[in-house]
């Protein structure tokens, strides 16, 4: 079966680099499924769940916002967060959600800071979403 080279990078590290059979990415316009020989595509991604399939099985990651570049044989995901399902700390994510909600409700945040807190809220929600869906 044909494969594509998938690369997931964050400012902190290269999270994944290897061959995959299929990738599903949370794009700004909805989920995008990518198979090998996809048309070149450039888009933004939203915080959410990223899935990729390798011969070993399906893998789930929680990702933050960022960019996606698709070439026929290569997919590059640039995001500010990428956490594998197994590494997500549900409790910590829940606390982060509560803290962010509280900050937005109580403090009069504006501009950059508000955007930052909102972004971290979305990221924590994405982590929870990935962690919980795999349980059912």
């Amino acid at each position, binding site marked *: 079966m044909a494969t594509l080279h998938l*690369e997931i*990078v*964050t*400012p*902190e*590290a*290269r999270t994944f680099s290897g061959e995959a059979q299929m990738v599903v990415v949370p*794009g*700004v*316009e909805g989920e*995008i499924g990518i198979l090998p020989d996809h*048309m*070149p*595509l*450039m*888009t*933004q991604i939203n915080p959410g769940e990223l899935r990729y399939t390798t011969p070993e099985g399906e893998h789930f990651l929680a990702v933050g916002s960022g*960019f996606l*570049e698709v*070439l*026929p*044989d*290569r997919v*590059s995901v*640039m995001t500010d967060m990428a956490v594998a399902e197994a590494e997500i700390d549900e409790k910590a994510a829940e606390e982060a959600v509560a803290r962010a909600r509280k900050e937005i409700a109580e403090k009069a945040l504006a501009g*950059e800071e508000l955007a*930052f807190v909102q972004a971290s809220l979305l990221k924590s929600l994405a982590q929870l979403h990935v962690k919980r869906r795999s349980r059912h």
Partner: protein
Amino acid sequence: MANTRDIRRRIKSVKNTAQITKAMQMVAASKMRKAQQAALAGHPYSEVLNRVLVSLRDLVSESAHPLLVARPVKKTLVLLVTSDKGLCGALNTNVLREAATLDVGATDFVASGKKGASFLARTGRNMIADFSLPDSPSFLQTKAISKFCLEKFLSGEVDRVSVLYPKFVNTLTQKPVLVPLLPISKETAAGHDHDDKSAGAQFLFEPDSDEVLNAVLPYYFHFTVFQMILDARASEQSARMVAMKSATDNAKGLVKDLTLEYNKARQASITTELLEITTAQMALA
């Protein structure tokens, strides 16, 4: 021959200095490891970002986004990255020497770091902003700086934005470099292995090319500035560690020389004393 007490006092003070520089060396070494790690961690990310940018740059025309348009350069904005503290060898001097060669009339400066700011004030350059950052800055903190520069460029006040910073080569070498960042040109993103796979390919943009460019280009700029500042921090700590190590070594050498001198003086005074005693005895006998 110097007085033994004076020599003893000097040995003591040099030893004290050595102790301080040794401590600073240790601190800088541990900070250096952290700073180097932070700077290196972002490399894969900026590599991919650069690659994407190069292929994007080939696909869209120059007029597609204001950040891509090269205007005739009347005014340049230089972001000058230096350290806040001294005692890091020739690091700041080298960067500032480079800064001194820039055309005074056609250059506005934005300083990050106290050393750079005081240099600009002292030499009467046109400094339009001065930002201070902690030892390990976050993306959000450096974004305040890059956003300021971006706005100056977009408003047309400056026609080019460059960054002057000490590039981290390795622990022993840091090189001051002036990197033009805006407008984003092929040269800006070049220097990275560019494979031609994407060239000429028909790219799909989602939702559309404007939207994607609007997001990617400023982000690219912010991230590159962030990466450069982290690099400068790694340079600073490495330079400080090396400078403090050589200071400690010098102090040790000095203590050795002084100890030799001290022993000579001590020996001489004992000899004189013995001579006096024998002479006195002979005179009595």
